[in-house]
């Protein structure tokens, strides 16, 4: 599709649909927020079972984003949504395989990278919604962890850095790809808060690369 065509919907419609979606799935919004807080605590505590528990939470979130946000809501207005839904479901399976059902790691993540991951997770939980509201997105229409893709991609990237052993760079692939979608979406709809997603994903990749260079596996 020619980029100058933009998206098949505008910012007004997207905000209204997001508000409808958050209202309709309010129970899920609350559950996902609680799970995100629990996941952040787990990552901070750096428990040996952390990767498996976080894998379960992240896989659930990714699957929900694929089915409900992209597969049901966005498919009504965006012909690309079914492809995005498939990508999020694939990511959910990948998270389950690589974290939830993987054996516990023999050693835990070094402190510095874990700290970066925890900070990115916290940014997805607090900073991103706050920036959206500051950028005039109605509070009820914000993109939130576990129910919408931008915050979930950022949160998953932070979690991957915080708890996954260093060789699992593959867990960053979908968040990095999605950050491109999020940045473009933000540009086309005039939603500047969405630029946080590619900016922090770039930061995640840079932190991962620097850590790996400093301490090769």
């Amino acid at each position: 599709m020619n980029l100058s065509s933009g998206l098949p919907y505008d910012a007004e419609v997207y905000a209204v649909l997001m508000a409808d979606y958050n209202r309709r799935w309010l129970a899920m919004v609350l559950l996902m927020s609680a799970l995100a807080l629990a996941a952040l605590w787990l990552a901070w505590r750096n428990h040996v079972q952390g990767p498996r528990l976080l894998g379960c939470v992240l896989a659930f979130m990714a699957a929900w984003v694929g089915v409900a946000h992209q597969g049901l809501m966005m498919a009504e207005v965006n012909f690309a949504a079914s492809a995005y839904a498939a990508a999020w479901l694939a990511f959910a399976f990948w998270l389950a395989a690589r974290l939830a059902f993987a054996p516990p790691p023999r050693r835990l993540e070094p402190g510095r990278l874990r700290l970066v991951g925890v900070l990115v997770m916290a940014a997805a939980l607090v900073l991103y919604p706050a920036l959206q509201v500051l950028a005039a997105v109605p509070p009820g229409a914000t993109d939130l962890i576990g129910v919408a893709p931008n915050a979930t991609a950022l949160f998953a990237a932070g979690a991957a850095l915080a708890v996954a052993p260093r060789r699992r760079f593959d867990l960053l692939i979908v968040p990095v790809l999605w950050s491109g979608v999020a940045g473009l979406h933000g540009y086309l709809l005039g939603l500047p808060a969405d630029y946080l997603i590619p900016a922090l994903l770039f930061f995640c990749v840079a932190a991962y690369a620097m850590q790996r260079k400093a301490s090769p596996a």
Partner: protein
Amino acid sequence: MTTFPMKRRDFLGGAAASAALAALPNTVSAAPMLTRSIPSSGERIPVIGMGTWITFNVGGNEALRRSRFEVLDAFFALGGGLVDSSPMYGSAQDVMGWCLERLPKGRGDGLISADKIWSPAGGTGPEQMEEARALWGLPKIDVMQVHNLVDWRDHLVSIRRAREAGRVRYVGITTSHGSRHERMAEIMASEPLDFIQLTYNIVDREAENRLLPMAADKGIGVIVNRPFQRGALIDRLEGEPLPGWAAEYEINNWPQFVLKFIVSHPAVTCAIPATSRVDHMRENMAALSGPLPDAKARERMRATVEAL
């Protein structure tokens, strides 16, 4: 280009429609309305139609649907005819059907429905045409086009079959943004077509070089999309003073200036601006009346915009 006095009986289907029409202060019921003939049939249609890209893709939200209903209601009340959509436009076809169903009796009698087959939307051409009829809630789609020339050979066959079966009236192909003009010209040269749809406006005049003269020569109607370059052209012109001589053509604002430039090209059948606002619809539809610029005035219009 000819004008004709619009008769109320052509316009109003009954008392209910009349009452609803009275709510619209800018109704042009008694004004002469600019129309053009579809070359292949001689059927006359208003030169200003309506596109639905982005503007009618509002999903299932009822408040947004109601606001689009108001836009469509105003469009017909002000003399509109052709409405264009596509399976690429998300929920636009469904929203259009929802709006048509709720129009006052007789209001949408002048509808010329235009839709497209777009391969990436999935399903076969015949399946997409069936879905279009179901979504619009119409027994037939007037103009069925191959969207962006994708799989045009197969889809033209399907559309012609649908026309033979009485489910389509006119056959067309589309492109936009000035792309694929060479391929469009090849198809125009080799295939019988009723319509082409392309991008043409006062700052994007590439179609004047080959496609518009070719359409006129071969008797193919022309639907013009992106007349405002998705609003960017109007954003650029707004705030600039309208030249005084524009009043000679009953042009009161820049959207009318831009639209009158387009529809005054002798090969153009209809322009399809899209809007989600009733006030913008009124501005657009005002271009349906008043004199059309001649070749000299068109050149003056072009020079004016280029100088800004």
